[in-house]
């Protein structure tokens, strides 16, 4: 199958590759770039384990082709911590026990990242709606919601310090 040349920015670095037009973005991220923090949990776009940020928006990378990311900016879970410092959302998931098996966690964190930028001070109901496209089978969601609430607080106090 003929390949297409794509060029994009991934976690702040420029990346170029030749990909088959049918290759899913999630497979490009995992198998070509080797960034295996983005997971595949279903084949019907329900689970959200593959959620990444594309040009500032949370997307399910299983529902896009790699070629659709051409010229765009991609952020994956691996790009979230800066200079060895966990992002406040990562910190909050850890402290509030917002994860168990960890499989849904990167997708949950990336959805939260997008959502908290839009809505820095959300209600519980807003959080539950925001993560309704991310399935978790371990936690029962309560501690994930608590983690996102706590992350919002951490991010606000960080903003204030600036």
């Amino acid at each position: 199958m003929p390949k297409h040349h794509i060029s994009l920015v991934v976690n702040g670095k420029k990346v170029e590759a030749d990909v088959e037009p049918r290759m899913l973005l999630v497979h490009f991220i995992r198998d070509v770039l080797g960034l295996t923090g983005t997971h595949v949990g279903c084949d019907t776009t329900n689970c959200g384990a593959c959620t990444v940020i594309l040009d500032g928006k949370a997307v399910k990378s299983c529902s896009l082709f790699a070629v659709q990311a051409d010229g765009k900016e991609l952020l994956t879970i691996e790009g979230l911590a800066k200079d060895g410092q966990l992002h406040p959302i990562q910190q909050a998931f850890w402290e509030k026990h917002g994860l168990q098996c960890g499989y849904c966690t990167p997708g949950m964190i990336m959805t939260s990242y997008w959502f908290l930028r839009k809505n820095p001070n959300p209600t519980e109901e807003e959080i539950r709606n925001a993560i309704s496209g991310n399935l978790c089978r371990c936690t029962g969601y309560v501690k994930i919601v608590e983690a996102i609430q706590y992350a919002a607080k951490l991010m606000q106090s960080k903003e204030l310090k600036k």
Partner: protein
Amino acid sequence: MQKVIHGIGHSVKRKEDPRFITGNGRYLDDIKLPGMLYLAFARSPYAHAKIKSINVEKAKAMPGVVAVITGKDLQPLNLAWMPTLANDKQMVLPIDKVVYQSQEVAAVVAEDPYLAKDAAEAIEVEYEPLPAITDPRKALEKGAPIIREDKGTNHVLHWEAGNKEEVEKIFKEADIVIKQEFYYPRIHVSYMEPCGVIAHYDKITGKLTIYMTTQAPHPVRTVVSLITGIPENNIRIISPDIGGGFGGKVYVYPPYVVAAVASVLTGRPVKYVFSRSEDIQTTAFARDFYITGELAAKKDGKVLAIRVKVIADHGAFQGDANPSKFPYGLFTIVTGAYDFKAAFVEIDGAYTNKPPGGIAYRCSFRVTEAAYTIERLMDILAHELKMDPAELRLKNFIPSNKFPYRSALGWEYDSGNYEAALRKAMELINYEELRKEQEEKRKKGELMGIGISSFVEIVGAGPSHTFDILGIKMFDSCEIRIHPTGAVIARFGTRAQGQGHETTFAQIIADELGIPIEKITVEEGDTDTCPYGLGTYASRSTPTAGAAAAVAARKIKEKARKIAAHLLEVREEDLEWERGRFYVKGSPSKFKTIDEIAFAAYTNPPPGLEAGLEAVEYYNPPNMTFPFGSYICVVDIDKQTGIAKVRKFVAVDDCGVRINPLIVEGQIHGALAMGFGTAFLEQIIYDENGNNLTGNFNDYTIPTAVETPKWITDETVTPSPHHPFGAKGVGESATVGSPAAFVNAVVDALAHLGVKHIDMPLYPWKIHRILKDKGIIK
């Protein structure tokens, strides 16, 4: 000042989390080996059909295809069938017929997963459809089409327990008898990480390494060795990070065998990861029990006897994962928290055209079905007697002073205080007020229900005299090595899938030896390095491997005492242990810390004592543990939509001593959500032709954050008297206990309309239809 070591009782945050929150977990599909090939399968569109021909020529000729494997290729290797955990055999790849939809029919091995799938679609199979059976009751009818010609019958087995005659006598003489049929639906575990395998046969060394999403790597190695003849030292099973298991990753699935064969054939690593749809459609199911329950009682509400008859659906192969002596697991915990004189259980199993499994989905071997049966029956009896269901339970609980208690079906319950747990739950939810509110609401025509479930579990399999799987006793193990600087590596025979063993097991060792958890590394899931164990399922890790950690640490302490005596130049009996050090009795300033002792173990061991500081324990529990709890659920039903909304849910759990209360709470939350899914959302449904109508995440609806309620959790603590530090295990309590609480609440909301029972899942349409039938809505 004592340093903080984060021992038992600390809600310390988990040691394993940094890799997961940064995307650095290493799950099976994250592993990429040089030269790796990929598998894809042609799968059957029919639930039951003869295979007339399989043409693989087109597929073989496609780009990137290295090999195509069919059942006929496996036959000469004696691998077309594989043994199940339950003394049956199962097709790896079929020769002449398929027995459930989406069954693997032929495999393609290719250079790339996309190419493998292309080629699998090019495999041409000619089928002759046969009538399918998807209901075990029909399968057992005379003249039903036979699914397994090799068996000649659809009847898998008959099993019974208890005293039939005594129960019959009590039922004849009892004041009141109630009877109810229940269907516990077929459900799917649906861990977030689908199952997968990478087999890597090294032609030079002859070593077969299999990476597998497995909860029980050691028994898998033994079975692989017995089947293939490869010695166990040349087989290595690695279970990497596991994205949830809940029982579904105990099973060995056909693609695992095909991957191993493909790797031996090609000499290259071969990977297969199920798609979600393939996973739901073919990997192990849970439940699927048709239950008829009966209670005999006095008119004052005192229960006397219980009788239960079950028809169990096994799918096309008997693959139930149960201890050898218990073909229907621990269903005999069906007497629950109550003092019954007598009990009788009989179960018949049937083959159907559905995938095999019969796994203990987040429960200790059919305990969930048992807890649901007794807790529904108690509510039905209360309703019949016009008694409050709480009062009926309180009247019949095994009194706390009767432990250890021998149940009518033969179990010795280790400890319990059922009344305390229920009273606490009633207080937390304000039970009396709720009943008043319900009465007022009923007058206004509003529908509100309160459901109680006071469950008892039986977990921690198990004592060697009774429990084995394929003959291997159900002990579990821990090996602790303390290095010269006092740092610890501890390895276990279990395999966590999200339970947090790297933290909780470290806490146990920290508590015993006074070593901070930061200096303790816990490893599991590699048969080359870890001591043999039966694995993680059935809430057995804390009761067995957790106990092994404590006992191994105590062995180390005994050796440490000898070394400390040598260093301090005193007799061993003159030393006293205080967490982290031995000191001389009466002279607390004379002491040696565990770090100093560890260093001396390698640099200055006492004469005549071998160097080093390590111990291994294969812990054989003296009994099972019996966690329990009381849950109360309040629901409000919207009459127009039939939606039952959980307003409040209180869960009081007693799992004995809690190692890490935060992790325990997380376990309970997760299991409650699963119980909620079972009660309201989930069922694997087949049409009469055996088509799976719920074979993906669009149609098989596990709860999202939107539907899932919030929980109020609390505890009572009744330590297990026989466990080294009093723990009982908790991972599954809430999946076991909660479904009955949800159903009891919904039925309670409708009880005054004459509704006695509704089968799960409690879909809004079912409730809506009832309200329509009863004339409550138009």
